[in-house]
């Protein structure tokens, strides 16, 4: 139980900080797609007996690079490419797990999140990779912010836009893969995007927006996991409902 809360808090930090860049860079759909790709990794892990978390990280990163490559080479229809990858991944994951005879609880918990299944090994993996992901984001935050605001001017001032895009999707892929155990692959996108969208309603500067989004994510994860624990509900679903609730409150507070 305590383990799950530690992991949950780490994920709240990771998802909301990376989520700010995801939203500002208009990468929401990419993060959604990566969440489904990560599921393929989980499926392979479950069936082949590897650590599903590790497999999720590997497949998600690979998928992130593929998406960035396709987007830069064939800029037309990039949302269609994402839709194809998203549903393709989900289908592949379900088939792999079914063929391996493992469909039911184990996959279900990766779809919607489960706090009961967090192992000690998971805590270690998530802490290590999570710290690396967060440090990377913070190191490049001024460049990422500049590119999000004005890609062309950033480029003409010497920011390596392509490299940063790859970096961002890679970091997001890692964060998503780490998060799907607790939040679930169908719901992690919401935890990344909604706290930032809620924070944006307050119309404040960059640092404050990140802070607000972080606080919202922490509150939702804490409240969601508590609810999940008391009523034996899937944690991802309760977390997302909490974050939605906060979003609605933010909308009402900031209504003109």
């Amino acid at each position, binding site marked *: 139980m305590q383990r799950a809360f530690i992991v949950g808090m780490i994920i709240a930090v990771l998802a909301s900080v990376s989520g700010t860049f995801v939203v500002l860079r208009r990468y929401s759909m990419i993060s959604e797609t990566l969440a489904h790709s990560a599921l393929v990794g989980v499926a392979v892990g479950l069936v082949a007996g590897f650590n599903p978390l590790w497999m999720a990280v590997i497949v998600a990163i690979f998928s992130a690079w593929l998406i960035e490559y396709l987007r830069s080479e064939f800029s037309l229809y990039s949302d269609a490419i994402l839709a194809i990858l998203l549903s393709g991944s989900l289908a592949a994951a379900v088939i792999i797990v079914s063929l391996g005879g493992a469909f039911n609880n184990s996959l279900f918990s990766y779809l919607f999140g489960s706090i009961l299944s967090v192992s000690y090994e998971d805590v270690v993996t998530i802490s290590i990779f999570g710290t690396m992901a967060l440090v990377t984001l913070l190191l*490049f935050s*001024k*460049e990422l*912010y*500049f590119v999000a605001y004005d890609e062309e001017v950033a480029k003409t001032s010497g920011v390596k836009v392509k490299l940063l895009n790859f970096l961002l999707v890679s970091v997001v892929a890692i964060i998503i893969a780490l998060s799907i155990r607790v939040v679930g692959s169908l719901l992690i996108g919401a935890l990344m995007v909604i706290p930032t969208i809620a924070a944006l309603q307050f*119309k404040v*500067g960059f640092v404050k927006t990140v802070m607000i989004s972080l606080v919202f994510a922490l509150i939702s994860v804490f409240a969601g996991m508590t609810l999940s624990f008391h009523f034996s509900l899937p944690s991802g679903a309760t977390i997302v409902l909490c974050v939605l609730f906060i979003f609605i409150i933010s909308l009402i507070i900031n209504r003109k």
Partner: protein
Amino acid sequence: MPMKFSVPIFSVRNLNFNIKGQKILSNISLDILASEYIAIIGPNGGGKTTLIRMLLGLDKPTTGEIKIFGKRLKDFKKWYKIGYVPQRASHVDSAFPATVLDIVKMGRTTQRGYFSSFSKEDKKLVHDAMQKMDVLDLADKMVGILSGGQRQRVMIARALASKPEILILDEPNTGVDMLSQKNFYALLKQLNKEDGITIVFITHDIGVIADDIAKLFTINQKAVICNDPKQILSCADMSELYGIEAHLLHNHKHEH
């Protein structure tokens, strides 16, 4: 540093640009030397913005060669020397979480390399740039709520904060009031004469700055280059009257 003056900052040779078979720029050759103040005029759709975008590597020419400090664009590393204010600075999402200060600070992003945070010197340069553009009192305002002219001044402040050696301005004072425009022209003159900054200024307002500039380029698919400051006003009149057919002009006499 006499070396600096022997290599043009930009040198363009036989540049052509077509989109879908339509000629946008045709056989353009020109040089921009260190510490020159250059004005570019021409009718709407003449290709001024396109030419600038090619100098900055944002669009690729169909044929022809562009060199910056004697290097091909893709081999050039010191982009931090360039301050660029694009034509439409207001295309950006009004919900973007940025204060005026956040935006001007972006000008310092690539000056210090990755991993470093803002130093005292950065802060001073940001402050000075904001003072020059008279936006200090807007520092904590959200950029999304500014008026068009205010926002334009903020964009110029960001370019100035990067302490550029070359300032490229694409009709930066659209929507800026008369008094601010006058101050801005005075500032450009000062930056050029006192600080030796090379200025490339796209404008329709040639009369006011005619005495300040060294060369005038008229771009209307082809380029007409007026090298003689004393003749600039008559050049401008001719160019407007005859468009690109004004071969009477001093066409690239000083070459080689």
